[in-house]
């Protein structure tokens, strides 16, 4: 299977106008939320944050192709995926404020918590897909990761396992060209991540990750394939992160401004806007309305985040095990006493 031959050339005709507008609104919402998050981090109102700007199409496009029963195993930058799949924005924000609420999707939302160690969520997805296959219900699994993640052993082991077991699983790689400061050419000698699928006898597909329609359609067919017993797919979306790796990073140390400018010119939102205009479903009033809607959704989430009750010691002690061991119960009591009386229970 040659890589060039599998590069999908899909037409936007397959996508309804409603869906196109929905894509636009979601991308816009996430961009607004992203910029607000970066700003809040600078003001000390949020912890270290991983911005997604530039990757909206890859995230929104792929997540929109999922059904609610599908199980998502994200990395740490997939705020857009999480939101589309049902995670409230305020919980996403709470995560970046070091709050456990950010790891708890509402009931019925099949979203695993953020995985910080690179590539480690990929085998989880493999196991979940195996469970789905054993149960033979109509669930598929998708896991998200970056280009850097493909160098880790866990990526390899999970890909191989999934291929052998022929699982209903999509490996979605957001190839943004960098792992923090390390460019793709120092990460791997192949030109496209999708080529790696060949090692596993798996199908590998590369799409333009800044074209939300192409992402959506490619994802939709991978979902259909998986749901119909066609096995796993490695889907690579080539994209770029416009911002720094996280708010603790300074991307100007390792990336040329000209490269960033080039990618800004490929902005996924502007590209979709062009399509909407061609289709004549873009108007200033519509945009104004959706922006207001998006801003108020985000602003409400920020208010909700900020009005969360303070952390409780229960969160620290009550979920290590289902039944708290005696010694841990004593430690909790000590901590509680310290908190209420300012003293150690034993002191």
């Amino acid at each position, binding site marked *: 299977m040659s890589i060039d031959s599998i590069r999908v050339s899909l037409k936007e005709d397959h996508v309804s106008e409603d869906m196109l507008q929905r894509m636009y609104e979601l991308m816009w919402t996430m961009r607004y939320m992203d910029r607000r998050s970066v700003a809040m981090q600078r003001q000390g109102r949020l912890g270290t944050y991983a911005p997604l700007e530039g990757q909206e199409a890859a995230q929104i496009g792929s997540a929109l192709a999922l059904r609610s029963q599908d199980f998502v195993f994200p990395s740490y930058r997939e705020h857009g995926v999480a939101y589309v799949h049902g995670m409230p924005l305020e919980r996403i924000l709470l995560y970046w404020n070091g709050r456990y609420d950010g*790891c708890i999707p509402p009931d019925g939302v099949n979203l695993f918590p953020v995985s910080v160690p690179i590539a480690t969520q990929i085998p989880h997805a493999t196991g979940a897909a195996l469970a789905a296959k054993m149960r033979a219900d109509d669930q598929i699994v998708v896991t998200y990761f970056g280009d850097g993640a493909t160098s880790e052993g866990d990526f390899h082991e999970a890909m191989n396992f999934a291929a052998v077991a022929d699982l209903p699983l999509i490996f979605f790689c957001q190839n943004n060209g960098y792992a923090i400061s390390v460019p793709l050419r120092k990460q791997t000698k192949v030109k496209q991540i999708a080529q790696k699928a060949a090692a596993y006898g798996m199908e590998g597909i590369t799409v333009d990750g800044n074209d939300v329609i192409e992402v959506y359609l490619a994802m939709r067919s991978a979902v259909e394939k998986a749901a119909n017993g066609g096995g796993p797919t490695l889907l690579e979306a080539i994209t770029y992160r416009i911002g720094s790796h996280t708010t603790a990073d300074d991307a100007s140390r390792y990336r040329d401004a000209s490269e960033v400018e080039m990618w800004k010119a490929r902005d996924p939102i502007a590209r979709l806007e062009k399509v909407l205009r061609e289709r004549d479903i873009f108007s200033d009033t519509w945009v104004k309305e959706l922006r207001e809607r998006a801003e108020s959704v985000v602003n409400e989430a920020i208010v909700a985040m900020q009005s969360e009750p303070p952390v409780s010691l229960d969160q620290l002690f009550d979920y290590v095990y289902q039944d708290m061991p005696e010694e841990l119960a004593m430690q909790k009591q000590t901590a509680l006493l310290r908190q209420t009386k300012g003293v150690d229970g034993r002191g």
Partner: protein
Amino acid sequence: MANTTIIGAIADALRVAMRRDERVMILGEDVGVNGGVFRATEGLQEEFGEARVMDTPLAESAIIGASVGLAVNGMIPIAEIQFLAFVYPAYEQLVSHVARIRMRSQGRFTVPLVVRAPYGGGIRAPELHCDSPEVIFAHTPGLKVVVPSTPYDAKGLLLAAIADPDPVLFLEPMHIYRSFREEVPEEYYTVPIGKARLAQSGTDCSLFAWGAMLQVAMQGADMVRKTHGVSVEVIDLRTLSPLDRMAIRDSVLKTGRAVVLHEAPRNAGLGAEIVATINDLALDALMAPVIRVTGYDTPYPLFALEDVYVPDAARVAQGIMQAMNYEIGARL
């Protein structure tokens, strides 16, 4: 009742668990048609099929990582690691995920996983087949660590581990897999996790051990009884995390002296935590330093040297006598 060995009891527990609950499944290397390199899963693939008894690719991190995904998506996986040292490539999955998912998700996702692994020395095996790194996992909050030393406990503890809503590392002392038999009920039963077992009551000195070392402990206790009339209380810890701290305290409060026995290197081994537990809860009763009889602070050697390395009854007896003969100093 069946008269069986530890490995027989384990195989029996697996079969009983799989018959009781469809969600229980086994995955690992060579667990299928081969029945596991020690035959713990013998016949299970025949009975339950290839899906529920699955030969995986040779990839431990994927085995444990996939078990997480299986567990959070409705299954009760039992992962077999061929020898405990081969869980090292899955260390990240165990420590960063298996142990933390309940806490991370505040109970929204849980990992009712059992990881089974043969461990310990004494069988003239190749390098890295004999490590005893139990303390590493005991130091990992969120994991439970269980080690049986008898066929009865092997079945009951394994069934308890499978029923446990949290991840359990179930360590199997391969040196005594087949070394003795015992009557074991054929039906389902559990032995509670977290409770030590009084293997032998005594008054002069407490001796803490687990797994294959339990036999050695009993022999050592027997030696000092015969040679010096010392009455040793032998405690089989059975669960290494969470430790049965009360059992440790109560025994030392009674005897005033203690010896800890393990195969792992001494430095920062689980013995240290037992000493520290006695320090915490029973220091006043202590009439001598707690003696640690352990492997040396070297890697587990190639097998020509293993008899020197692994503690034997004579070393245990010496440790007990060291505790007995200690002259208490001017402690204040």
